[in-house]
């Protein structure tokens, strides 16, 4: 068994154990975790179509493509940022890498996201007028979303070991970015003089190709979006690797 296979095995075991403990305590357990994004999606869909009367074709699909990846990123930042510190006693006691702990909590969050996604996307696609041909490129967009979330969460989680107020900053960032990122409104609503805001928004560069695959967008346009998303992921990967190399020896000392 290679070192990578052993690490993956440990990630699987920790994720399963954590989920088993979490959902044993509540009656509806896992259903509640999945229900949360479904309720959020339903309320926003009603408010924006019925109250604010946003007139976009297939708005339910448009909102789903933007809101679900946003919920995944937001909950990962929220749920996993403190995972290394919370597992301090385990890391100090056993020969486990902090990254094993981190990736197991990201995986747990991804399972919740994916369950909600499947529950929501299948009926929405069935009731929509046309099935997007962009679905062929969907696995690439999903991979970009997973990598973006893993890298940003890992960077924040490592920073949290040394700077405990990073959680407040991520909360603050997410509250602002929810309105600055075209999640519930299309980018065409933004006046041209403010377009630069979405051009420099890495969150949008990841959410845009995810939504484009679901929401009838020409394939070349999706590929261009994915290329931008790949650039963002590459930069984040370099930042994460550099930061990890710099601080990995100090983690056990600080937690």
């Amino acid at each position, binding site marked *: *068994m290679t070192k990578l296979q052993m690490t993956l095995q440990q990630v699987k075991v920790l994720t399963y154990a954590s989920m088993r403990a979490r959902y044993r305590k509540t009656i509806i357990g896992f259903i509640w975790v999945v229900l949360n994004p479904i309720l959020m999606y339903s309320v926003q869909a009603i408010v924006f179509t019925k109250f604010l009367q946003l007139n976009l074709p297939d708005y339910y699909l448009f909102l789903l493509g933007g809101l679900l990846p946003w919920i995944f990123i937001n909950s990962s930042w929220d749920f996993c940022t403190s995972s290394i510190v919370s597992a301090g006693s385990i890391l100090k006691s*056993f020969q*486990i890498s902090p990254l094993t702990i981190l990736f197991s909590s990201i995986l747990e969050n991804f399972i919740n996201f994916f369950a909600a996604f499947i529950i929501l996307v299948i009926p929405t696609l069935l009731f929509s007028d046309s099935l997007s041909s962009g679905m062929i490129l969907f696995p690439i967009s999903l991979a970009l979303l997973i990598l973006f979330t893993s890298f940003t969460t890992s960077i924040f989680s490592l920073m949290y070991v040394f*700077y405990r107020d990073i959680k407040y900053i991520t909360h603050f960032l997410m509250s602002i970015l929810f309105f600055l990122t075209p999640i519930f409104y299309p980018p065409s609503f933004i006046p041209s003089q403010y377009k630069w805001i979405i051009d420099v928004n890495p969150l949008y560069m990841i959410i845009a190709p995810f939504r484009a695959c679901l929401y009838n967008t020409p394939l070349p346009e999706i590929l261009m979006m994915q290329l931008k998303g790949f650039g963002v992921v590459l930069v984040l990967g370099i930042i994460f690797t550099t930061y990890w190399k710099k601080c990995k020896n100090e983690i056990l000392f600080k937690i």
Partner: protein
Amino acid sequence: MKFSSKSEQIVSVQNLNLVYHVDHYTNKSIKDLFVSLASSPIKSLTASARYYHVLQDINFDIYKGDRVGLLGINGAGKTSLCRCIAQMVVPNSGQVVVNGKTRAIFDTSIGIVPELTGRENAEVICSLLYPELSHKERQEVIEESLEFSELGEFLDVPYLKYSKGMQARLSLSIVSARGCDLLILDEVYDGADIFFREKVSARVLNMIKNSGAVIFVSHSLEQIEEACNKVVILDRSKVIYNGDVAQGITIYKNLLRK
């Protein structure tokens, strides 16, 4: 880290140095950084980093059959040295040569997921300690360890309800279940009752006979005398003694009197 091919030598530590960033001792926040940068930018940007030498020029070897007692007052660097040998921390300079598989445990009162039962935690601990084993082999280790722990019906009670002694029983039973080239036990007997400590000691000694070596870290000189055939003393980040147990204990007692 390099791996030696000498069959009898299990560990070789050469000129090992480990340094930590002193600033990481203090609880800093992004706000603190921002305030210090805004109030005195030149001082903040030009301030040189402060370092603490945790381990300094450490040299020693461990051979097959060695049961090394690592002694030293609190803060001498015992745990950091063990973590370097267990490859949990990379030394800043020098090298640690480990010939074979290392298994280390630094605290026996840790439940990976305290909400789960002792039996379920045993499954998780076993996966973390023995990732190289197949599913079937791991199940055998779990069953054998649970029987050895004598926790009986408490195995199906949530781990968070366990006393320190029960926690130690579970962890020590699993960690000593299979032989390895080097076993590192850092103050892990603390909490276990005398009866169980004797039982585990016998099992560990038997394990050593069949496999490699052990590093014991303990403040109990009685335990060191009983279980070890060699002593290494650390004082202020340096090795000050490496040799016979009886003489080592005398030197350590003198060190405590100072």
